[in-house]
């Protein structure tokens, strides 16, 4: 193979040479060359070794879908060398060959081929079982494909949303015509083309084709209503015309995923030329007619010296002319429209001779086949179409499409350039019209008071585009490769059918035909036909395999886009950062776990005063006459008599009686309440209330606003907290004026609109201050400043967890699980079964009648130094009797403390338990009388 003199339609820029390497050796191509064309121009013939038999493989289609042209480019595996343009300093190497392409040690498999029948691995390696792991390692060594490196590769990816009226997939003549006329009709159009340039088959055509191409592409590129994306692939059409495009060649990123909600999709993806199955059909030098036309006319590469051509169609005949023009000697033309065909290609590392059906042998280094076309119906299938095989045209054709999908071009039928353009034109106009119908539906979905002109409902007439008669040519009288990427032969398909895998789906799964990187685009029709031959049915009776997205493989990078995971920070975060707080992931929040010494933080709170940022607490502002009814319904306890200024603790259960959240709600005014929830449950509680208010009790007068982000929340805890808070506010904090479980509103540190409630998760006297969030950091810093002499210290989640455990307060989701119903958590006093109704009431009623559920218990190990890890199991012999849900070393008590869920027979105070540690050792422990390990009377927090 060698470079030709200038060709009229060539896409290479001879003024811009590109130096790159192939398997470590320097090569030169031109800008516009694909990797494959640049190498072919320099005489490279073998590009890869096949997956199973390690046979040498060369150019087959010279396009994106060439199964033999998968190469490694730098750190990128499985690059399509028939498509990817060569770049300066590109490092390209062959995959799947060891030690080299010329000599591949695994090629020994070729000799073993007769034993490596389909599914051979299912039939052996079974005994002895002890050797199976060794077999696995051997099999794994035969994995195909390129290499990924362990170091993160830089890649820039992006996502974009698009809302075109019409999206045209395929930039051949029909697709271009459709885009132009849809745009002319006023539609916003996106035209997507897989290759680097528009034009489809016109690109490698004669001067008339090139002229038409020039005209159409100029019209497309200059039209303001059309956005053109080349080197881009429509990877999928999902429900409701949600279309994905992997777009390349965008400034600033390697690839971009465009997610388009398309009002009307036009599929103009054309056809793909089909290989022919015969002995030796995978030898380097056996090429499709489109491949040689691409090589000659686009890349000015002479594909061989002496050729045999097997042609069954016009484009195949045109290839003969191209070959002759390129100085290739055409040794023989075999006309497949008659009875003649090719029986065998022979040669070792490439074609050396061709034997035809008359038994003649022709010396040749190139065998060109033109035996038919496969319609690329992938997008149609994804739209619900079940294309039917049309024997007259020897290909599948569309059967029925949904309203918002149309098809044009080779996927529909054949014709001259003019006929294709006329069809595309009509389809484009119809697409624009249908888009306007969809748009009208969308715009009128919401009653706006605007009167809109209804769209034109008369369909545009589309001229017929008949598929040409074509002989059915799938396999010669010999056997050859059907799936090149998977090394599946026609003989394998016969074997599979004979063994009983006699539906196409089973045969596919058994032989792995169609399962490789080309996903059946080249081989599916041959596979179906040969399977039909093997089973005595015809392709008509045997449906094609399902086409699943993506249409072409798409990088994980572009699917992911910019890697980001949103997180939430409190407004006080700058201070936490300055103090190098250890971050703790809590749902979507990042919170300070501690500031270096959680034990010292506990001591500060117990002995002086501490402040903690509890801003993520869920907060819901509830107003209206019927708020008490709502509270009465969603909480298990009573709410009707909550006075203004009071706060109450409540538990929420699902309708199955399982606890899902807890928190306090305070009454700030006559018809004004503030509800708090756990941080993690904030969204769920909000939705839960909305659900009941809208679907259950729409008549209730309740206005609800989620204000979690509206307030920064700071809990001030410890014996000095009254003194500290008092320094910042005029609110009367004396115990008789502001008691435990009460709430006040007022000004704190000069900030109006705050509310404070006196509650005590830590077990200490404490005030939880809720500040309009813009002033959260200000108040936080004032507290630290004013409390310096009082020993104030910031504390994190860890210190809070220790203290709440000392106090015996449970955490929903940690000390409870997905089956924990209301009773048994030591809060039976709060479950009011005499209320007429509340969420989960019947289940709690029935639970109260039983005694088989686990109880929450405070537990202390007999050896105070042992802290059983959380989730340690409580056992009696081998029987599980409960588990430790929370455990810590208590700095206040100087011993280990736990909460746990315990079977009823072991839940009584004083019960002796056995806790199994992770090393299997069992330690003894006792159940305490109260949940609180510390200050069970609550004198500290009520002080």
């Amino acid at each position, binding site marked *: 193979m060698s470079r030709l003199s200038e060709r009229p339609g060539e896409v290479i820029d001879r003024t811009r040479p590109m130096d790159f390497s192939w398997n470590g050796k320097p090569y030169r191509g031109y800008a516009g060359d694909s990797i494959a064309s640049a190498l072919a121009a320099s005489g490279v013939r073998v590009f890869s070794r096949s997956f199973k038999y390690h046979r040498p493989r060369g150019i087959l289609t010279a396009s994106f879908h060439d199964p033999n042209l998968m190469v490694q480019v730098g750190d990128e595996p499985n690059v399509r060398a028939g498509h990817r343009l060569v770049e300066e300093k590109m490092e390209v190497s062959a995959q799947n060959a060891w030690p080299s392409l010329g000599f591949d040690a695994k090629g020994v498999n070729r000799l073993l081929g007769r034993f490596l029948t389909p599914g051979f691995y299912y039939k052996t390696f079974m005994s002895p079982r002890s050797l199976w792991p060794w077999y696995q390692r051997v099999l794994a060594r035969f994995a195909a494909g390129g290499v990924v490196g362990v170091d993160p590769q830089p890649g820039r990816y992006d996502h974009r949303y698009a809302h075109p009226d019409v999206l045209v997939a395929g930039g051949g003549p029909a697709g271009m015509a459709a885009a132009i006329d849809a745009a002319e009709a006023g539609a916003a159009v996106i035209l997507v083309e897989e290759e680097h340039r528009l034009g489809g088959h016109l690109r490698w055509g004669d001067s008339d084709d090139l002229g038409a191409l020039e005209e159409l592409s100029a019209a497309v590129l200059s039209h303001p209503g059309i956005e053109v994306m080349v080197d881009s692939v429509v990877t999928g059409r*999902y*429900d*409701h015309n*949600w279309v994905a495009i992997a777009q390349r060649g965008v400034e600033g990123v390697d690839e971009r995923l465009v*997610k388009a*909600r398309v009002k009307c999709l036009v599929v103009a993806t054309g056809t793909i030329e089909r290989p022919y199955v015969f002995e030796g059909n995978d030898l380097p030098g056996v090429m499709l007619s489109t491949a040689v036309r691409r090589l000659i006319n686009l890349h000015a590469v002479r594909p061989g010296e002496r050729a045999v051509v097997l042609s069954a169609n016009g484009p195949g005949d045109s290839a003969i002319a191209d070959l002759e023009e390129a100085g290739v000697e055409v040794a023989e033309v075999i006309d497949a429209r008659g009875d003649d065909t090719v029986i065998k290609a022979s040669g070792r590392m490439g074609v050396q001779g061709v034997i035809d059906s008359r038994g003649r042998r022709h010396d040749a280094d190139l065998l060109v086949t033109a035996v038919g076309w496969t319609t690329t119906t992938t997008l149609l299938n994804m739209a*619900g179409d079940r294309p039917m095989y049309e024997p007259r045209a020897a290909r599948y054709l569309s059967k029925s499409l949904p309203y918002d999908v149309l098809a044009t071009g080779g996927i529909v039928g054949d014709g001259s350039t003019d006929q294709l353009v006329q069809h595309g034109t009509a389809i484009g106009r119809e697409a624009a019209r249908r888009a306007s119908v969809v748009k009208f*539906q*969308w*715009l009128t*979905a*919401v*009653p706006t008071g605007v009167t809109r002109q209804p769209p034109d409902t008369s369909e545009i007439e589309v001229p017929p585009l008949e598929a040409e008669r074509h002989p059915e040519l799938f396999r010669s009288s010999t056997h050859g490769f059907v799936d090149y990427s998977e090394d599946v032969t026609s003989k394998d398909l016969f074997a599979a059918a004979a063994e009983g895998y006699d539906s196409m789906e089973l045969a596919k799964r058994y032989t792995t035909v169609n399962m490789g990187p080309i996903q059946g685009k080249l081989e599916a029709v041959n596979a179906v036909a040969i399977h039909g031959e093997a089973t005595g049915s015809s392709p008509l009776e045997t449906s094609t395999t399902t086409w699943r997205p993506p249409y072409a493989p798409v990088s994980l990078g572009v699917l992911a886009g910019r890697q980001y995971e949103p997180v939430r920070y409190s407004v006080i975060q700058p201070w936490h950062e300055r103090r190098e707080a250890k971050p703790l992931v809590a749902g979507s929040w990042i919170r300070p776990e501690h500031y270096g010494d959680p034990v010292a933080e506990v001591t500060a709170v117990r002995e002086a005063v501490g402040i903690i940022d509890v801003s993520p607490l869920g907060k819901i502002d509830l107003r209206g006459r019927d708020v008490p009814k709502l509270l009465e319904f969603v909480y298990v306890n009573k709410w009707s008599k909550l006075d203004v200024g009071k706060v109450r603790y409540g538990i929420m259960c699902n*309708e*199955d009686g399982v606890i899902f959240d807890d928190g306090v709600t305070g009454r700030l005014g006559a018809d004004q309440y503030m509800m708090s929830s756990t941080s993690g449950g904030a969204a769920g509680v909000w*939705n839960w209330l*909305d*659900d009941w208010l*809208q*679907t*259950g009790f*729409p008549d209730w007068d309740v206005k609800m606003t989620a204000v979690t982000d509206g307030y920064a929340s700071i809990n001030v805890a410890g014996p000095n907290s009254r003194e500290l808070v008092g320094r910042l506010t005029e609110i009367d904090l004396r115990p008789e004026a502001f008691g435990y479980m009460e709430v006040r509103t007022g000004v704190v540190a000069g900030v109006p609109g705050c509310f404070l409630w006196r509650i005590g998760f830590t077990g200490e006297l404490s005030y939880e201050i809720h500040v309009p969030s813009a002033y959260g950091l200000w108040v936080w810093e004032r507290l630290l400043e004013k409390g310096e002499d009082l020993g104030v210290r910031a504390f994190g989640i860890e210190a809070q967890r220790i203290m709440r455990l000392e106090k015996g307060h449970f955490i929903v989701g940690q000390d409870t699980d997905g089956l924990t119903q209301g009773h048994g958590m030591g809060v039976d006093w709060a479950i009011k079964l005499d209320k*007429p*109704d*509340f969420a989960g*009431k*019947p*289940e709690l009623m*029935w639970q109260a009648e039983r005694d088989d559920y686990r109880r929450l218990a405070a537990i202390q190990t007999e050896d105070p130094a042992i802290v059983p890890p959380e989730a340690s199991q409580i056992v009696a012999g081998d029987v599980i009797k409960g588990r430790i849900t929370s455990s810590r070393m208590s700095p206040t008590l100087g011993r280990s403390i736990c909460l746990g869920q315990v079977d009823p027979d072991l839940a009584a105070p004083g019960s002796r338990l056995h806790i199994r540690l992770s090393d299997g050792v069992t330690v003894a422990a006792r159940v305490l009388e109260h949940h609180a390990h510390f200050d069970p009377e609550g004198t500290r927090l009520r002080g």
Partner: protein
Amino acid sequence: MLVILCPHCGPRNSDEFSFQGEIVARPGPASDQETWRDYLYMRDNVAGWQTERWFHVSGCRRFLNVERHTVTNEIGVVTPVGGVQ
């Protein structure tokens, strides 16, 4: 990603909504166990058209009754619970 024609917000992607499942009427709190647990757990799980509830959680926050074909995902009439607000 489906399009749901929200009667308040217009055509929106389905990821703005939270699927709530087939609509099940809540029996009274004095129901027997069989009735209550049917309500909690048993479902028709229709393969075809069903009226189901969606919550436009990232939009108008209204609960909607949506007709949907559970095989094709085609969407029919969408009505807010309790009428347009």
